[in-house]
């Protein structure tokens, strides 16, 4: 399970409501902003390009290479999307990829989509962007520099996305910190190499066939600075929080407990306010009545559904 990029797509039921809520808020804000940015400064030509690139990344994730003993590595694509289209469009592209994967292929849950978008589209892209720009500055805008920067962007995007997933699982109480964080980090350090290598291979091909597509990003320099900063902050935050959590899980819990945070994340939200919402309802008989009513409703509904099917069958003469 942990040996594939699929480990980054969290299914429904694994994250607590609070974590989900936070993730959704952030994702919606970032994606909303990206929508406005892309709508505004990138030309209208970018729309078909984004849709098509999203499809290509999705299909590209089918391309694998044998690693060892039956396992294989493959692509997440945030780094490539970022290098090809700049960070804002890449955020939209990765959001599309992750959403369609969840919707159509149940690769990742629907409710937790906010978290998956956060991990892969927001963290993945912003970190890739920051690393790429940083390394490119260091290595210079040569073919070698681009390949090295691309590799690094790929590796870091996977690593930090993985750390983000691990932290979300831990804070939700779904996985113990001592195991989840080192496991995710370790495994994805390897997977990240694969991502880096595939990114390099793709960039090499692109540099030969269509070097014009790999522009060193003079356009949209303005607001992209915010992505740089975002990437930097996320990187620092995740790299600090993760080791702390795994080495000192009690440390994280102690801090959380001090702020009452952990109570919130471990239990469903509404249990915090049971008494004033439903006075005097802690009554066995009421529960039974409700359950009975529910049962009747459900059977009624299902019965109608079956009857509808039956009738359709008779009309179409099956």
């Amino acid at each position, binding site marked *: 399970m942990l040996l594939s990029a699929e480990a980054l797509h969290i299914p429904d039921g694994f994250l607590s409501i609070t974590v989900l809520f936070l993730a959704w808020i952030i994702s919606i804000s970032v994606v909303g902003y990206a929508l406005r940015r892309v709508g505004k400064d990138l030309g209208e030509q970018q729309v078909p390009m984004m849709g098509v690139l999203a499809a290509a990344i999705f299909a590209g994730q089918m391309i694998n290479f044998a690693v060892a003993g039956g396992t294989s590595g493959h692509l997440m694509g945030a780094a490539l999307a970022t290098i090809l289209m700049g960070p804002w469009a890449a955020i939209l592209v990765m959001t599309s990829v992750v959403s369609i994967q969840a919707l159509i292929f149940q690769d990742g849950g629907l409710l937790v989509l906010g978290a998956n978008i956060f991990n892969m589209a927001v963290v993945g892209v912003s970190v890739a962007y920051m690393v790429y720009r940083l390394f490119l500055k260091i290595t210079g805008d040569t073919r070698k520099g681009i390949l090295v920067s691309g590799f690094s962007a790929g590796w870091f995007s996977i690593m930090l996305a993985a750390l983000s997933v691990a932290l979300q699982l831990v804070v939700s109480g779904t996985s113990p910190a001592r195991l989840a964080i080192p496991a995710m980090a370790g495994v994805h350090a390897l997977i990240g190499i694969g991502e880096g290598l595939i990114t390099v291979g793709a960039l*090499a091909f692109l*540099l*030969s*066939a269509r070097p014009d597509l790999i522009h060193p990003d003079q356009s949209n320099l303005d607001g992209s600075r915010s992505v740089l900063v975002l990437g930097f902050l996320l990187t620092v935050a995740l790299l600090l929080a993760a080791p702390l959590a795994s080495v000192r899980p009690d440390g994280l819990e102690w801090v959380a407990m001090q702020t009452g945070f952990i109570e919130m994340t471990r239990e469903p939200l509404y249990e915090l306010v049971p008494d004033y919402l439903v006075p005097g309802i802690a009554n066995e008989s009421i529960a039974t009545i409700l359950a009975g009513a529910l049962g009747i409703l459900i059977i009624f509904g299902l019965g109608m559904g079956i009857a509808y099917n039956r009738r359709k069958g008779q009309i179409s003469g099956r």
Partner: protein
Amino acid sequence: MHHSIEIEQLTYSYPDGHEALSDVSFVIQPGEKVAMVGPNGAGKSTLILHLNGILGGDGRVQICGQEVNKETLRRIRAMVGMVFQSPDDQLFSPRVFDDVAYGPIYQGLPPDLIQERVAKSLRAVGMEDYEQRVSHHLSMGEKKRIAIATVLSMDPEVLILDEPTAGLDPRARRSFISLLRELHLTMLVSSHDMLFVEELFPRMLILDEGRLVADGKTSELMSDDHLLAAHGLERPC
């Protein structure tokens, strides 16, 4: 001496149930040049994919005496040079050299042998100076030739081509036909280009709706207008 290609009662159905091949049997001798014709959807491409184990159906497929199954896949693929219809799907490396070298590299050959094979195969297709060129920028005719080189470099026993002349302008087509004439390998070709078939391939197989409906001398089958018409084909004029 074993047959180059031997197919016995090959039957194959797609995952959705549609039967693509039904009880197909034929034998191709070493050095023979055979063409497979038939309407679209007849199963020609499906059949071809069985010859290097990409698809696996019921029945027996043997290449140079070796049965095609899970264990022999790697060996079979070194013996069968398969050129697909669209060269864009075959040229996936940045430079021509890398694409032609893929087969030998995968087989673990030493670098000097790889260099030799690449040079030899490019020469065989008339593209000696193209080693450092970028595949993506070549013309259709050039790409088709390079695609052949990518499989020749593996030193195959059998060459299989799917619609080789499709999409070529008359000049490229003419030079391509000359090229194929010079290659002395067992050859199986799937094509709609009846003139091409008549010119280069003494033996013809007609496939229709997954069945082998005719197997004989090209000159004889080509003169049977009824047979051709019955299977959506026309005599070349």
